[in-house]
């Protein structure tokens, strides 16, 4: 069991290194082993380099509004996945999946979205 844990740690270390070679900044701020689904309304969709940026208003378990800041891929990569600057607009209902930030701040690294019309689109 202990050996397994060690192997796992070694594998995670190997996985972590390429992530730190990201072009614009390290991804170490995100917990890439976790996924969070968020249902809410788009507050802002910013279509600019270095990363497209999505702000979503989400209600927490008590019904209180929480603003999630979500970093996306570069617009050029997103275009190849079918995105446009008009794919999301403020007020749109959206469900997204993110790798959350480490710690308790409401933010994450974008993985995919399900639009109001049911279309699923990756990022």
């Amino acid at each position: 069991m202990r050996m397994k844990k060690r192997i796992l740690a070694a594998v995670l270390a190997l996985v972590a290194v390429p992530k730190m070679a990201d072009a614009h900044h390290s991804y170490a701020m995100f917990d890439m082993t976790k996924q969070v689904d968020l249902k809410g309304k788009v507050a802002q969709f910013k279509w600019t380099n270095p990363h497209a940026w999505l702000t979503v208003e989400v209600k927490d378990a008590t019904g209180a509004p929480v603003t999630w800041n979500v970093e996306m891929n570069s617009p050029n990569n997103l275009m190849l996945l079918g995105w446009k600057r008009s794919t999301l607009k403020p007020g749109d209902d959206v469900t997204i999946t993110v790798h959350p930030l480490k710690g308790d701040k409401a933010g994450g690294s974008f993985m995919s979205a399900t639009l109001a019309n049911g279309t699923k689109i990756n990022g």
Partner: protein
Amino acid sequence: MAWKTNRFMAGAALAAALLVAPLMAQPGPPPASPPPAGLKAGTGAPFPKGKNAQLDSLPDWGGIWFYAPGGPRPAPPKLKGAYKAANEKWRADIAANNGIDKKARSNCSPPGMPGFMALPQYPYEFLFTPGRVTINQEAWMQTRKIWTDGRSHQDDPDPSFYGDSIAHWEKDTLVVDTIGINDTLPLQTGMTHSDKLKITERIHLSPTDSNLLINEITLDDPEALEEPWRASYTYRRDRYGVLLEFQCSENDRNPIDSQGNTLFH
């Protein structure tokens, strides 16, 4: 008193205008940089007329290219001396800091060479003009100027992000030699290099797939490396893609705080 001062100021303004006006009318001799080392006056890339047809014999690198890391990763460069110790300290600091790299530079500051040639997410384009190859990289809107007009290296190039690059074509392979890279820039993540860093690149299309571009890159630094480090970078073509604008300040969500932490907001 005030009237006197005003009159003095008006006089001074008039005198300044009279001095400037003739200067604007007659700009003086044009700027005239000397030809670079290895080129005779009247030759080289600044004289493209009549040489554009020759570009047609160069290989087809049209479209844009995305860096596509894949295959076995080469072993990391073998650092030595102070460079090795600095890298070990960097690793220890990261391990002690929950895997997070503290940065000394803004995330809006580009990596320069050699990191320039291995940037994921953001594409490249290669432009051929007589006597020169220009590589544009979308991230940070970086540009490499690579001279193919026969000039030699500058005697004492100012250290810079992209260095002093000269090149020649060996059939369909662009062979680039780069020196003069600023030694405050990374060799790779967490590694530094000396001002003796020399980068050799052999860039060519894959013999089996014309939509793959291959860069056989060698990093040589007698002060920082035990031996030259070699890797083969691969880029995939997107024929009709274009490089987008990249104004980092327009969406700078990841500033660095005074402790070197990358913020997120």
